[in-house]
């Protein structure tokens, strides 16, 4: 019985702030300030159109989708390739490269972010619309250690017989990887991809420093900016609506894919 009470309290603690945000997003700023709990008198759909158009949430949303989408595809590909080679081939330097990669997990990003800014700038990857490319590369590079670390154990755990059979059938290294090993690592790829997605969608420091062009802003920057800019004449309704617009897609994606996560946070848990 006690368990149910504790769990229910916890669930309420998670859900109530979210529900409150959703229905508050339909209130006028005045209603929000005078009566934080009251339901909206009239549904203020205009909060949403203001958020989408004037606050440019739509634009930031598109930028975020581009950056996270491209970053995710590239890091999964590069990470899987690297993890595969390190896990399935023995050669001098293998361990050194592997540990060098994994050590990256403990590097604090904020230490690297200043020089990184100039590395990308000197390559011309931060100018204008190209800025998004620089941000994508930074996302990819900083997600690599995690990706390699987790996919390494997946590839190492795949049975030898299958790749041997593929070799006997005359499949080269490339075909063995893309047509045999990659499909077999799907469960691992899926959970790592979800974590990378969340990590990239979450990213704040990297875009804050690297992504200085306003038209390139991602959602996180846009929202913080919106909040800071408005100061005391806050368009509370629009703010809440912006938050809802940002949160809902992620929650929907999570609910759809959550099955992939339940067993597979770590690779060992999958067995």
């Amino acid at each position, binding site marked *: 019985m006690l368990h149910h009470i504790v769990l229910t309290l916890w669930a309420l603690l998670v859900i109530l702030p979210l529900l409150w945000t959703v229905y508050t997003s339909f209130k006028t700023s005045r209603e929000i300030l005078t009566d934080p709990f009251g339901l909206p008198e009239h549904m203020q759909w205009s909060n949403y159109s203001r958020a989408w158009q004037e606050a440019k949430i739509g634009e930031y949303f598109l930028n975020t989708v581009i950056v996270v989408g491209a970053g995710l595809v590239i890091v999964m590909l590069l990470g899987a390739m690297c993890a595969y080679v390190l896990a399935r*081939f023995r050669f001098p330097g293998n361990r050194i490269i592997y540990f060098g990669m994994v050590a990256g997990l403990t590097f604090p990003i904020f230490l690297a972010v200043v020089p990184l800014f100039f590395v990308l700038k000197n390559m011309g990857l931060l100018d204008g619309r190209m800025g998004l490319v620089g941000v994508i590369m930074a996302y990819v590079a900083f997600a690599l250690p995690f990706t390699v670390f987790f996919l390494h154990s997946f590839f190492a755990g795949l049975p030898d017989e299958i790749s041997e059979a593929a070799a006997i059938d005359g499949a080269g290294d490339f075909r063995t990887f893309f047509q045999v090993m990659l499909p077999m690592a799907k469960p691992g790829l899926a959970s790592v991809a979800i974590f990378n997605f969340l990590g990239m969608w979450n990213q704040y420091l990297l875009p804050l420093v690297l992504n200085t062009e306003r038209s390139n802003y991602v959602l996180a920057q846009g929202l913080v900016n919106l909040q800071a800019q408005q100061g005391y004449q806050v368009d509370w309704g629009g703010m809440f609506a912006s938050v809802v617009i940002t949160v809902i897609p992620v929650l929907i994606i999570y609910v759809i894919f959550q099955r992939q996560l339940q067993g597979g946070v770590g690779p060992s848990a999958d067995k």
Partner: protein
Amino acid sequence: MTVSGVDVGVHEAAAPTPVVVRRRRRVPTPQRMLFFLIFLGLPLVVYLMFVVSPFLQSFYYSLTDWTGLSPSMEFIGIENYLRIFDDAVFWKSLRNNLVLLITLPTITIILAFALAVMVTIGGSTHGGVRGVRGAGFYRVVSFFPYAIPAVITGILFNFIYHPGGGLLNGFLNLLRAPLNGVRGLFGADPLNDIGTAWLGDQRFALAAVGFAIIWTFVGFYMVLFVAGIKSIPQEVLEAARIDGAGRFRSAVQIAAPMVRDNISTALVYMGIFALDAFTFVSVMTPNGGTDNSTKVVSLHLYQTAFRDGRFGEASAMGVIMAVVTMLVAVLVIGLGRSRKDKR
């Protein structure tokens, strides 16, 4: 940098002894060389260029007086480090980081573990060992906060803590029904002490930020622990029950040791996070709070670099934090190891 990355690929391909395909060939085929070049070379180039090289550069910058704007810089040795040593704000920030380092992992992991135990082995005491009813629901819901971008969580909690229309003050005011009517329009009315600006008040600000962080991470680690506990063989838990172990004892004496690796991973990650905490702190208290009550080193570093234009000094702070972070990681992993060996 590009060249060296590619070099590694070529060099390593020189003598591959594939584990999988037991061909014992000294000279690799051109196809295999190309394979290594692309598969290993490409990721390594990206990693070396955008992660390793900036890190190494920042060690060098920490010994210069670089402003970030001027292309020229002087090598000034350890002067930056000495200046940081005398910087009261740095120490205050570090102190806040250490407070977070001790409190966040402890509270988050204990809560996450308790919830994980409840949904996995907290169920009926009759029949097999299982979780409570609706376990799946709790698990899915608990993960919600982690799926919300940290910036949004920060903004969300800004709303919740807002002195005027915030959820927390609103809730407290509901509790104090008699005072409810007295409440002024903006809650700043001196007659009403419930309209606290939680993030503006030195006494509460750091705890308020910490609570938002805990709210975010508990569900994530709960899912991690659930997976760990589920991999414990049923027989072990059932044997314990037959031996008369209650659910609490089962949790502490059987489940906890068996998910020790998960717990130590969680400690390392949470610890690393507590030493950073940039996103939450900078969104919730952009200037580090009243009298730097919530300032952490990452925010101080960011301001030193980008607001004050002292990139050299900021890099030195980064180096110090990197060392602290590594020490914490090594310490936690080492402690986990030695305990395991004793077992």
